[in-house]
């Protein structure tokens, strides 16, 4: 079964981080991704660019309207995601707990739809 791990973090806090801290975070994520891959749990994943680069698009009558900014304004923003393969929810939770995002920020675990 596949699960999505959504990493929420404060962009403001991240911007204030020192160069070393940023490099450390990057290395932690790289190592985590590597372990996911080695375990055969990795399906997909990426960090997301700053939410100020987001646009919201709606086209109710086929006519698109585009608004700048993320859909939800909040103190913490979606900063990245993984899609992983796990035996069950506890397996996914165990992976989420090892994610660097769980230590510093917040990770939401969502089961993917089964078609």
């Amino acid at each position: 079964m596949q699960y999505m791990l959504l990493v929420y973090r404060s962009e403001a806090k991240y911007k204030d981080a020192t160069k070393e801290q940023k490099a450390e975070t990057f290395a932690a994520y790289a190592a985590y991704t590597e372990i996911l891959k080695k375990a055969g749990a990795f399906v997909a994943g990426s960090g997301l660019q700053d939410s100020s680069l987001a646009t919201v698009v709606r086209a109710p009558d086929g006519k698109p309207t585009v608004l700048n900014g993320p859909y939800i304004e909040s103190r913490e923003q979606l900063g990245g995601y993984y899609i992983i393969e796990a035996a069950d929810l506890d397996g996914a939770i165990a992976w989420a707990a090892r994610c660097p995002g769980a230590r510093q920020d917040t990770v939401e675990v969502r089961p993917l739809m089964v078609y």
Partner: protein
Amino acid sequence: MSQGDDQSAIKTAEAVARRSYGKLVAILAARTHDVAGAEDALSEAFASALADWPVNGAPLSPEAWLLAVARRKMIDAVRRRRVSAVASGHLQLMAEELEATASLVPEIPDERLALMFACAHPIIEPGIRAPLILQTILGFDAQTIGSAFLVSPAAMGQRLARAKRKIRHAKVPLRVPDRADMRARLTAVLEAVYAAYTEGWSDPAGTDASLRNLAEEAIWLGRLIVTLLPKEPEALGLLALMLYSHARRCARRSPAGEFVPLADQDPALWDEGLIDEAEDLLVRASAFDAFDRYQLEAAIQSAHVVRRRTGATDWVAIERLYDGLCAITGSPVAAINRAIAVAQTRGPAAGLAALPVLALGSRLVEYQPYWAARAELHTRMGETAAAREAYDQAIALEIDPAVRRFLQRRRTESFGQYRTT
């Protein structure tokens, strides 16, 4: 087929339903994570049993018979639905299991604990965990659970269905967690069982048959957990705690139905057998040297029942145990009980000082025992005005008429010496 055989087949079915319901649901749902589907299939299998057994006689292994029929019903149900790749995988596995078990009378494993852990999984909202366990392990219907937890049956049914959907769609595992997760997860299971017990206990008059049943069912679940996890000290502690309170159930009301506080209860009315069993459990638990909430609460109960042998309550021990409980739980309820113990060891003024301070917006304002304790301590101090005010608050908050009458009596007594009635 004679009437007697009919009756005995039905009795067998009922007995199996009582004893094996949760066991069979757990096995049926283990692979599919579909608790609701398992319950449906099982209830169909019970219906078949009631039709078949009186005619053909009860089978040698009723559990295996029910399991086989329920599995067939589940396979049929999956076939009726749109068959996805995942589902057909299940189908094959289930069919294979069916083949494997059809030829012999299998030893049916007890997976109820795994089911309990699924029901108390962190993804399930805490308030619905106890009802869900009652339903899946004991086969309670939403009507019964709803009335026990003061929720409409329709709303309870919806919440239970939602919880089961979560188990299925998020694929909550039906297994006993490993060491790393055990502590937190077991806490949730024990909390749910204790919640069921306290719901049952909340009917002290014992008039509501369904609620009294609930306390006994919770003890039954507690025994089941201890049987399956004999080395978990908090599981032992919880069962001991429930047995101590249950031992006193007959002493809580006078023959006339009046409330009798613990201090005035006649120890002769306490159930010696249950108390002895609780003491043994507590000793077993203490061997693990991992004291926590339930063991402490059970130990407090143990210090109270010392009175049955010595005639006196060990308030010093009780105060010390409440110190520990307050430190672990930070619970204001524990703090109130501690203050009552302090009043016994060091006098009412010290007890009043030990009562938690009412912060603005504190839930304690609505907590009857807080006001009753305050009233009692003010009375002992001779502060009748303050006592009367606190009694009024307590009386206004109490729903149980017997307890209300008791508080009213105490209120009258508290200033009786200044006034003729």
